[in-house]
């Protein structure tokens, strides 16, 4: 199985006042295509930072992130954006729907960015698939949290990304709604064969993934992957 994500010796420090704050230290792991992984750890352990770096949202201080065979550190911000457009899907904790766009428009954005035709039709189909076929033209403020996250899932999967990053996808939802969203996430993941990397506090959610990477104070303290997968 090929690796879709290869993280080697990843370190990230931030300048805080007059001293450096190390958020991630020498993190190394590889993720094979089509697998599901969860990054877990307490607050402040560096989970979200790691996710951002894997998706190329930020630059590393040291080490390498290789996404689908392409090292990110030499790419400019815009080149990384183009790479995300092709390969990456995102699900955010607070949904991050664009408030001025209707549900169907929000979902269509990734396809539109790629210049594909029929974006609206496919977005409508996918919204129907996530159970929002009758809410296409509603704006985010007119949707409940669960509905908003279902729109978020549709948006994340519409361009069949190679890898999908989910940042606490159920963190802002009540238990029942969260469970429904979880189910949908895994269903869509199976249907599209996407590699899933999610960050969560929720051990139950993490347990549904094939692998768990545990962070503490910016370092990997546990990785449940088979030894072959680990290096």
């Amino acid at each position, binding site marked *: 199985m090929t690796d879709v994500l290869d993280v080697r010796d990843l370190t990230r420090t931030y300048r805080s006042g007059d001293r450096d704050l190390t958020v991630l230290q020498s993190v190394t792991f590889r993720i094979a295509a089509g697998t599901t992984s969860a990054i877990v750890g307490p607050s402040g352990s560096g989970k979200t930072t790691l996710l951002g770096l894997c998706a190329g949202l930020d630059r590393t201080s040291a080490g390498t992130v290789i996404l689908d065979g392409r090292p990110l550190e030499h790419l400019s911000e815009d080149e990384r954006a183009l790479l995300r457009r092709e390969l990456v899907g995102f699900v955010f904790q607070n949904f991050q729907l664009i408030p001025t*766009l209707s549900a169907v428009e929000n979902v269509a954005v990734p396809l539109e*960015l790629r*210049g594909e035709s029929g974006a609206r039709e496919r977005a409508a189909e996918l919204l129907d698939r996530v159970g929002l076929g009758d809410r296409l033209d509603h704006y985010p403020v007119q949707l409940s949290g669960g509905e908003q996250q279902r729109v978020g899932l549709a948006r994340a999967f519409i361009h069949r990304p190679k890898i999908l990053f989910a940042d606490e996808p159920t963190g802002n939802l009540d238990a029942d709604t969260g469970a429904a969203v979880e189910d949908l996430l895994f269903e869509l993941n199976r249907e599209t064969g996407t590699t899933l990397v999610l960050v969560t506090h929720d051990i139950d959610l993490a347990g549904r993934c094939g692998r768990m990477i545990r962070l503490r104070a910016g370092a990997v303290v546990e990785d449940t992957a088979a030894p072959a997968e680990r290096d």
Partner: protein
Amino acid sequence: MWVLRMAWRDSRGFRQRLLLYTSAIAIGIAALTALRGLSHAMEEGVAQQASELLGADLEVESDLPFSATAEALFDSLGGRRARMVETLSMVLLPESGGTRLSEVRAIRGNWPFYGELRSDPPTAALSFRQGREALVDNGLLLQYEAEVGDSIKVGRVTFRIAGRLLGIPGETAVRTDVRPPVLIPYEYLAQTELVQYGSRIEYKALFRFDDDRDVQDLAERIKERLSRSDPDIDVDTARDRQQRLGRTIRNLDRFLGLGGFIALLLGAVGVASAIHAYVEQKLESVAVLRSLGATGGQALRIYLLQAGVLGLIGSTAGAIAGAAVLLTLPALIADFLPGTVRVSPSLGTALEGISIGTSIALLFAARPLLAVRSASPLLAIRASYESGLRAGDRVWRGLVVVLAAGGAYLLARLLAGRPDHALFFTAGTAVALMLLALSAHLLRGSVRRFFPRSLSYVTRQGLANLYRPHNQTLLLMVSLGLGTFLVATLYTAQNSVLAHISQLGGEAQPNVVLFDIQSDQTEGVRQLVQQMEMPVLQLVPVVSMHIGAIGGVPVDSLGDQGGWALRREYRSTYRSELADSEALVGGTWHGDTVQAAVSLEAGVAQRLGVSVGDSLTFDVQGMPLTVVVGSLRSVDWQRIMPNFLCVFSPGVLEAAPQFHVLVTRGDSPEARALLQRRLVEKYPNVSAIDLDLILRTVDDILDRVAALVRFMALFSVATGVVVLIASVSASRFQRVRESALLRTLGASQQQVQRMLLVEYAALGTLAGLTGLLLALGGGWGLARFVFEVTFAPAWDWLAGALLVVPLLTILVGLFGSRGVARVPPLEVLRRAG
């Protein structure tokens, strides 16, 4: 395509607010297109009415009666002819007893040949020439409540008033204010006895040629032919007049252009700050788009497109409004221009305004929009992430600022016409804006530093809003401050000038000047003044002359050296003592010495390039007179008394044609009026100027100028108000959230409203105060260096302004924030979550 679609979708829910931002640019463009349209109309009007400016094709003018050679030449020219003799003289309106210094014009022939004398009744413009009748300036008649059919005494002759004179082609209302014209038939001129030896008379011969001869060429030939027999003549054609008027128009244009420039720049500042507030709300959406794969360039284009469309809509609305405003403008400038200006909105001007407005909006929006380009996608997962500018963006930001400054310069260039003026405009505005921004910064800093902790919670919260993140201090200080500054500077300068003139008449200072007194009348006039128990403060002879040569070199060979000083008419006197208003600054005062010497005013000596010991030849009405420069004097011109550039030693000018000037003081206006009435009766050729007249005239002219400036300041203030509304509404989002949080924590609606009140009151007061302080500086500079008078601010007016500006700010601020305190907290908090 996607960018276009996104730009449209993204503006949802913000369109109303965005349109409000556009009105800032709209007002600027309205001012600009209206003023540009006006200047085009003025140029066209002057070109079309060129011949009316003179009322003739050619005018030959002289201070002396024309020679026989000249008369013979005029006879040979053909065409239609008219004659006019003009002199300044007192006129008396016997019914009311009023007297006033007027411009008496005796007319023969059908002048004006072009355009018409406007009169009430209309027939009077022609009929007065048939009998002993006069056409009298309407303003003069109104002043003394005289009617058509009453009489007017000009010199020794009493005329029946045939009609009210409403307008003379080619003459401005400002001019007729200063010296109201009284037109009489030529044949009565001799009987008036106004033409006396030494009095100042202008003789004019006017021509209209219906063939297509080259008038310009003819003018040159006349000047040449008469250079010996009538060296004093001046030949004027309609084209000369048009060119001179062109200069006036350009000055007016530049002045109006400055108004348009400031209004537009203020609008641009408004757009920039509105876009800044808008972008802050959009950064999270931008981050999401970026994380989904949009490039920085794509994100920037979405918002640039929005800003461009905003600019386009605003400018179009502005151009349409400008066309409407244009129609009201001619009334404002009518007093400064002869003839009528017909305005009609033009598509070209509108398109120009639209493209200028759109470009300025884009240029000024670009800087805040760069934040979009550098917005980090990390914002999508970390709300608190602050993305600093990347190195490349710093370069971009510098570039955009340079571009915006360049755009402002180009705009100024278009409006001012000349590169140096454009630079002055741009730099001047930049300095004013920087001073205001600096004041804002200082005030913000000092409120923070010396924060009044003992005040109530509500007051402290309101004041703290001045320096909190997303505060509007800078924006409001600049926009409101600039408007206040402009209006107040103007008013302060005007007040200083008026105060200065009133002071001139204070405490034993002379306040009446009698001139054109003939040598044989001096004793009589002196006695008359003394009988009225008024002091004779000065009685001096005046001789008119020109400079003929400097150091033996004739003026004609001196080229441009000396400029006006070389060519002007010198009204000189002779005496052996220095006057109170003079001080010796070089050489030796001639005193009673017999050697022919002249004492020059130091400035004019410098201008002429002569010093003590040099020889000067004067042309005293045809007679050459060579004297040595014996001394140099400084002169205090700021007094109502005759002052002289040249003072001769006694024994040189006694025989020359001359008149005398008597300076006196009358304590009451009634006494002064009585003196003038008696004078007119006994010595009709003697003219009087009194302080009341000067004050009234200056006040009148300043009022007309002020109306024009107020009009432009209005645009500036209107833009300020729109910018204020726009900026209040831009921060509304933030306000609503804060208000919800405060109320969740237990603040009452009333408390929230009071905080807003305190904030806007503080902003308005500080902005007004800064504007007024700067205006005191500006007014002082204008008074000191431009008008050269003592600085006298109108404190009561300034105090009034200090109340009005904060009140306006509070009103607009509270209006813009209405409902903020009433949005249910839960709704806001849910949305935020």
